[in-house]
């Protein structure tokens, strides 16, 4: 028997080290996985929020600090000053709204916004006139690319490239309309390069940084989970070893005294000690907290308490209970743990679980005398949990049953 027990403890220990998930909270009401997955997402979100603030700040600062003074200084030189200024105001207002919405995590619909920006783009190029075409007063050159970035935040870079390309074609049409020289085309090329490079760099760079942050956070979270699992496995292994040592010592003492003839096998007290030691060893072999189920956990705690008070108890669980609301668990466990406190002689606690049924039963010997603490005999329903209690002279039998 002792060799088998050792082998069994070994087997259980090996299984414990390979627990797939982190240990749940004591009441098990929330599965732990989402919290673990949420950590990298939160880090990525924080990182992304920083990049958004940067993008909004660049767009609005450029628009106000560089675009506005130039527009105001040159307003008399435009072919249609109202259009240029009106376009600026429209983009300023739309850009501010889009920026605020983006920071709040509820961006404006991207494509209508992009369409509006392109329409302003074309109107301003038409209205700005030949002399101001490449001047700072043609604010769409410098500013619009940043608003494209705001409009398409979090989407694929190809959309941004398409918008910037359209922007470049509109500009090309305006340049060609004025019969450009070689210098104009060279300037055009430079401007297009300038409007492309920075927004695309910021757009791609922020996406990469967010991705890296998420990965790093995920790696860190995984390591933490692993460490927590290892610690939990180590702790439960240690607890199990301690219990085995304790139980083994108690059983060994009884056996030693019996072997040495110090104790009489016919002595009821010696028999009681043997029964208790055997029950403890049996439970140690049969039970494991591999499945951190809160109902079984509660019942085990109650059984441990009864056992410490000297009651030989068997707790046998078959199947894994489905996740149950705490009220149902209470209704299943509480009536029996209450009776357990009053049990004498021995007790048999069983749990049979399926996906839509959990039956918990406590059987103890029936005793003489009035039933001070027991519930009234018979059957009654407590919400979705059926209670049953009866004494038949041989046994007291309490059963709670939940049907899903």
């Amino acid at each position, binding site marked *: *028997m002792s*060799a*088998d*027990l050792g*082998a*069994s403890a070994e087997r259980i220990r090996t299984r414990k080290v390979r627990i797939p998930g982190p240990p749940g909270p004591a009441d098990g009401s929330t599965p732990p996985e989402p919290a673990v997955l949420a950590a990298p997402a939160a880090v990525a979100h924080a990182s992304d929020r920083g990049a958004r603030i940067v993008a909004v700040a660049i767009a609005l600062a450029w628009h106000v600090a560089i675009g506005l003074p130039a527009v105001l200084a040159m307003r008399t030189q435009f072919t249609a000053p109202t259009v240029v200024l009106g376009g600026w105001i429209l983009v300023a207002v739309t850009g501010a709204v889009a920026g605020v919405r983006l920071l709040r995590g509820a961006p404006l619909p991207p494509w209508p916004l992009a369409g509006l920006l392109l329409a302003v783009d074309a109107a301003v190029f038409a209205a700005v006139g030949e002399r101001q075409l490449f001047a700072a007063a043609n604010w769409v050159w410098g500013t619009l690319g940043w608003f494209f970035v705001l409009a398409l935040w979090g989407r694929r870079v190809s959309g941004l490239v398409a918008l910037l390309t359209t922007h470049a074609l509109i500009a090309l049409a305006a340049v060609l309309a004025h019969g450009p020289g070689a210098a104009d085309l060279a300037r055009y090329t430079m401007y297009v390069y300038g409007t492309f490079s920075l927004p695309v760099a910021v757009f791609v760079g922020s996406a990469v940084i967010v991705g890296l942050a998420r990965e790093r956070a995920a790696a860190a979270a995984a390591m933490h989970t692993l460490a927590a699992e290892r610690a939990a496995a180590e702790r439960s292994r240690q607890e199990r070893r301690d219990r085995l040592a304790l139980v083994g010592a108690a059983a060994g003492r009884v056996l030693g005294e019996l072997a040495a003839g110090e104790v009489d096998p016919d002595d009821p007290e010696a028999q009681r000690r043997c029964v208790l030691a*055997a029950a403890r060893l*049996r439970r140690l*072999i*049969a039970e494991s907290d591999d499945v951190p189920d809160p109902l079984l956990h509660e019942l085990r705690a109650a059984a441990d308490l009864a056992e410490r008070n000297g009651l030989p108890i068997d707790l*046998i669980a*078959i*199947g894994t209970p489905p996740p149950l609301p705490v009220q149902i668990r209470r209704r299943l466990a509480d009536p029996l743990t209450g009776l357990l406190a009053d049990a004498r002689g021995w007790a*048999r606690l*069983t749990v*049979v*679980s*399926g996906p839509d049924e959990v*039956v918990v*039963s406590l*059987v103890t010997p029936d005793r003489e005398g009035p039933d001070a603490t027991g519930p009234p005999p018979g059957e009654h329903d407590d919400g979705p949990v059926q209670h049953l209690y*009866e004494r*038949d002279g*041989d*046994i007291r*039998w309490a*059963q709670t049953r939940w049907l899903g």
Partner: protein
Amino acid sequence: MGADPVVGVTGDRLVGVAIVDDHPVVVEGVRAWLASEPRLTVLATGDDPDEVLRAAPDADVVLLDLRLHGRMALDKLAELSATGRRVVVYSEHTDPGTMLAALDAGAVAFLAKHEGREHCVATVLAAASDRPYVPPALAGAMVGDPRPDRPMLSDKEREALLLWFQSMSKASVARRMRISEHTVKQYVDRARIKYTRAGRPAATKAALLARAIEDGLVRPEEIGIYRSQATHDRPTP
């Protein structure tokens, strides 16, 4: 408590038992249990099934410790069952998966080591005459069987198994279900017979089934399709 008296199953002939266990103290303990029943005689003991059966080729029942020298002897169990050896598995490993695997492999019965003398004697006597005996631990494993291809039990059979597992007293189950103890046993045994169709075929399973039909415990047509069992809920006379 609650073990069934098995009456006149083998006539006057003694039932020969072979015990295979790698712990001498357990062998001695089981031998002492069996010695309390005059119809049983232990023919051979040892820790190697082949050697024990060479020493006692005529053993009616083999009591086999499922864990021999640190290994689960399920393949040996299947081999013995296929050749018609009535093997009663006994083990302290009472997780339901192991118990059901032992039934699938052809064990006539599964006995938890702590279930004690009465169940041990009753199981061996029943096995010797190819009759089922379901100790409470095995009833628990059957009632909680999660496998999708498990035999389809009727409501009464399930309830009888469940209550028997909980209380370990057929008298108490009978009072609770308001039926006779005999009927409780029939429900439990019928559930067990349905398990003869789970897992691979074995000579022992065929023998259990044949005897159950002979005894009128089940009708042949009931065994063919389990689904129909839900509608046949009355015990056979």
